[in-house]
């Protein structure tokens, strides 16, 4: 479903310099599987999520990323979204003045139009959104508020999952790099992942800590260091990391 081959990426730093972050990353996630990427700070985990979704300033210099047969590098961020790629942000953005429902209805219909599908009518959308919100315990009241404005960290994570349930992407990237997730937010993310797990959907969970994986149970765990995947294995790899730390793998890089 998602195939990344020998990906090299440069990132523009604040002082305008370009710095190589991804240095030949290869990875394949088939439909129906959940893969986790773990790695120390600075290994390029968040960069991977941004380069896959097409953020400005993240330039691919070599290699390829193919999603459902399409070369992602050729597509604008909104085209990648319409193709079915969804990023759950590490820090969901607040958008004052734009009600969440309006935002999601516009987004869903923009994606549908881009795919040549019919738009969803307002009453139809309301009914659908209400049903999805109920399933994950979000009130309609919250959906009427501006996107993420004034929400707690846990509420924001819950909204990211709900947005995915409404937009129904083919593939989710969850950027949970930060250690700041409290236990509730962690459980919310895990619950969401388990709800969204499906045979025709792939997922990539990016995290720094093993504890998230206790709740998610990935099919494959990859270890990333210095811009590359240096080891892949089953869920036991995460446990090993928890016990021994990253040091022995970092040694392999050098």
């Amino acid at each position, binding site marked *: 479903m998602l195939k990344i081959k020998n990906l090299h990426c440069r990132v523009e730093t604040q002082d305008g310099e370009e710095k190589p972050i991804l240095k030949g990353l290869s990875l394949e996630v088939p439909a129906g599987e959940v893969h986790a990427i773990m790695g120390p700070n600075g290994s390029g985990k968040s960069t991977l999520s941004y380069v896959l*979704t*097409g*953020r*400005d300033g993240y330039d691919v210099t070599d290699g390829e990323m193919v999603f459902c047969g399409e070369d992602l590098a050729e597509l*604008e*961020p*909104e085209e*990648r*979204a*319409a193709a079915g790629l*969804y*990023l759950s*942000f590490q820090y*969901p*953005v*607040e*958008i*004052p*003045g*734009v009600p969440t429902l309006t*935002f*999601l209805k*516009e*987004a*869903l219909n*923009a*994606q549908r139009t*881009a795919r040549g599908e019919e738009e969803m009518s307002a009453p139809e959308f309301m009914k659908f959104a209400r049903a999805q919100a109920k399933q994950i315990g979000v009130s309609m009241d919250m959906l009427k508020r*501006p996107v993420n404005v004034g929400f707690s960290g846990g509420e924001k994570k819950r909204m990211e999952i709900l*947005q995915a349930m409404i*937009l129904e992407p083919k593939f989710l990237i969850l950027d949970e790099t930060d250690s700041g997730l409290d236990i509730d937010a962690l459980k919310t993310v895990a619950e969401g992942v388990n709800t969204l797990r499906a045979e025709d959907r792939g997922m990539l969970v990016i995290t720094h800590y093993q504890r998230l994986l206790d709740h998610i149970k990935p099919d494959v765990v990859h270890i990333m260091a210095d811009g590359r995947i240096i080891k892949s294995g089953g869920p036991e790899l995460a446990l090993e990391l928890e016990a021994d730390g990253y040091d022995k793998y970092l040694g392999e890089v050098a």
Partner: protein
Amino acid sequence: MGVISRTPAEQALIDLLDGAEDWRAAARQAVIEHGLPTKRAEAWKWSDLRRASQGIDQAGETRILLNGKPAPAAITLDADTALKIEADAGVSVGSLEIEIAAGASVTLNEVHTIAADAFPNIRLEISLGDGATLERVIRSDVPMDAVPVVRSRIRVGKNATYRQATLSFGSKLSRHETHITHAGEGAEVHLGGVYLLEEGRHADFTSTVTHSGPGGVTRQLVKGAAMAHAQGVFQGKFKVEQAAQQTDAQMTHRALMLDERAEIDAKPELEIYADDVQCAHGNALGAIDETALFYMRQRGLSEVKARAMLIESFLAEPIDIISDEALREEVSGLLRQRLGAIA
């Protein structure tokens, strides 16, 4: 001070007002003695009227219509009214005095329809009697080559409420002046302004609110967005006289630079002679939040649509002071339509 040489617009204005009386005669005299204001005049330093109007050399006409009929020089209003200001190409003047009787409540729906190469000088004198309410909603959507100058003087009586919301898309030069005398003693003034400027356009919101009696409330919120080579000007002044104790006045101007080559000029001023007042002003400039833009695009919105939504959400707040729901929707709709076309 002698004027070196008159511009065609100055000469046309002097000719137009030959033999005129009252304020027109005073205006004519001022043009003869000083010419039209240039950027050397403090109040016009970001809006060089002489320069912007110099290519306009003929006499034009301004028509002021109330509910579709030509307006008299002065009128008392007690019901909702549509005010239309129309100007043909050329130099022109127009004037209207409006009185809102004590206790009356009126919505004034004001639309400026100005032709290209028109330089209309409009003077409105509005007086709100004690306890009166006036909601004035102004839409200025004019061609690039128009140079409208609209100066309103508003007297707000005790316990009266004056709400004004202006939406301007600017032009080569658009000057929106509002000068309020605020009686205090239960009176409230709410001034909302929005400017959205396409490339090369200019809009100037200049206002003074003079609190002359105690306990007055003023809220002013002006928000704008400007594209490349556009210029947004905000000059706001609150004057609180010694008698105006317990005045509560807040002024805010916030602008979005849609391009590094946009220009925003702001001069907020407080002049306070009373010692027991709450007055504040704030002024902030910003750019579109690139992270928010990426977030919205990641959800599937096109860059154009995402940008338009972000700008609209930024600009919408001053329009919210319009209490007439249908009118508020109309004004938001106009803003949205223009955003869809330019973002």
